[in-house]
């Protein structure tokens, strides 16, 4: 049986965050928490593999206690088990400290339910936007790493290979690798299913495993939370928009406005640069 572990994060829906225009700070109040949607595409792909092969799907997250809600959502979609690692000591973690704790969590999950064959992460989170935790976990667990995956073409449990399409800026790469491996998921990977009624019923009664630092006796305290984070945010600011004292282009008719504008563009060095002349 394949064991697939899906890493998720509960994030504020940053699309809903507004800036307080008076003191230039973020208004976090009333911003809904969601499962980072790239992670849901990772979960969906894990569930598709489970539909086709014999597989167990475990979801893990590091976060504050309310993140339990996101784990239950994953159970409702079809995950077998869910684990929340939560502790005040984890607070303030950057990507390095996060990948340390998540990697240790995966090791502990493996003790319970067997070695991971495939680990899924989202391409990046909506709030951190770094895309660094996936490679960090792969590195710490010595997994092959396939980032920016837009399609899983083949999973072969016998040969223990996975073939994927990686979507890069300049094209599409077809890559085959060996399990155990880690995949970071793009939106293009699949369409996320809706929870089934039995799934919702199971989720309603499900209690995720909750682990704290006490469950990891050999955790290195210097590698977790703020202390284990080499990067610190020294300041934030609202970007100053470059003000341009532009000219108004107007005219009696659209044609006249167009003539005026194009005339101005043609007076500049643009025609020469683009070979318009």
């Amino acid at each position, binding site marked *: 049986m394949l064991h697939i572990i899906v890493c998720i994060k509960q994030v504020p829906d940053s699309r809903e*965050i507004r800036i307080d225009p008076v003191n230039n700070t973020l208004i976090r109040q009333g911003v809904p928490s969601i499962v980072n949607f790239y992670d849901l595409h990772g979960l969906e792909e894990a569930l598709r593999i489970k539909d086709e092969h014999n597989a167990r799907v475990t979801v893990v997250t590091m976060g504050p206690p309310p993140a339990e809600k996101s784990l239950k959502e994953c159970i409702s979609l079809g995950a077998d088990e869910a684990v929340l690692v939560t502790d005040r000591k984890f607070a303030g973690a950057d990507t390095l400290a996060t990948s340390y704790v998540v990697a240790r969590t995966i090791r502990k999950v493996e003790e319970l339910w067997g070695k991971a064959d495939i680990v899924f992460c989202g391409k990046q989170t909506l709030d951190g936007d770094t895309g660094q935790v996936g490679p960090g976990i792969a590195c710490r667990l010595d997994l092959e790493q396939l980032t920016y995956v837009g399609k899983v073409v083949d999973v072969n449990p016998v040969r223990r290979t996975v073939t994927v399409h990686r979507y890069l800026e300049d094209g*599409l790469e077809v890559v085959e690798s060996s399990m155990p491996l880690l995949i970071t998921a793009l939106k293009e990977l699949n369409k996320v299913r809706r929870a089934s009624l039995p799934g919702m019923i199971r989720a309603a009664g499900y209690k995720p495993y909750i682990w704290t630092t006490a469950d990891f006796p050999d955790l290195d305290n210097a590698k977790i939370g703020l202390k284990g984070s080499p990067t610190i945010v020294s300041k934030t600011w609202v970007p100053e928009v470059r003000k341009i004292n532009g000219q108004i282009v107007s005219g009696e008719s659209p044609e006249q*406005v167009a003539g005026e504008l194009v005339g101005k563009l043609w007076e500049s060095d643009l025609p020469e640069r683009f070979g318009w002349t």
Partner: protein
Amino acid sequence: MTAARNAEQTPDWSDYRGVLVVVEQRDGEAKKVSWQLLGEGKKLAEKLDVQLIALVIGHEVGHLAQEAIYYGADKVFLCEAPELKAYRTRPYSRIAMKVIGEAKPEICLFGATGTGRDLAGAIATHLPTGLTADTTELDVEPPPSRLLLASRPAFSEKMMATILCKQYRPQMATARAGVFQSLPRDAAREGEVIRIENAMTEEQIATRVLDFIQERDKINLEEAEIIVAGGRGLGGPEPFVMLKELADALGGIVGASRAAVDAGWIKHEHQVGQTGCTVRPKLYFAIGISGAVQHIVGMSNSDVIVAINKDPEAPIFQTAHYRIVGDLFKIVPAITAEVKKKRGEVKAYERKV
């Protein structure tokens, strides 16, 4: 493992000097962002009075080592082997780690591309050190602190954040394409090329790249020189055809605001101002775009900006060189016709000559 554990005491990093840029290439062709990073890296290296170092990895990429010197590198580490033809995390990260171990740069920069982020994420964890993703502004504090000030958009591009890595070296960052400027190529520049051996054999690498399908007409906003972008004011998907006609007349490509993309009027790959997409074209048309901060951050470095909007109070006008208040549905086709006329005139003139 370094002795950088005690957060109270700054470790002695005085043997870490220099700025390293990892050059990204495919089939022997460098990505533009690599030369842009050398240009920005040069500024940092000059402020710190240190060398600018480049790392070139691949198969038959010796010429890129030379090019890196022309674009500003003082010293280039070059690793060539057939196994390195296509990027793969393990062999590439091992080589980069070896170079970082030998050259001990205080700053390491990578393009914030799929490959650059993949590689930097692996290396930063191995070392370990701090890595800032997707930076759009880089600076250094003068000696003695020599800290890299790595700034990036945060919270859906609504704010900027400056990130420091005080206790570890090298200080690493990935940086967006199209934000920084490369130095003019100078073939008279000289530098040192140091060849290094590839340590991994094909048998040791579990990942195989079976194929690569290049998408030549893929929308590449970052490298576009003319962008005709539309927003909420278009009211639906159909008017993008009109924008495409203008873009075609000018020889540019179509962009879009987040609002238009979120509404499903145009594909995501056209979006300007999203994470990872800052544009710097010579000419930018903002049509029916009101000008949310993240959009403006994404395009305000364009050389010439034309804004067309029916609302004279739209914030986009404060960032435009040419402001047109009016009905875009009438004005845009008129501009297209005028451009065609001008270019047609030019052609007719050429024929005469």
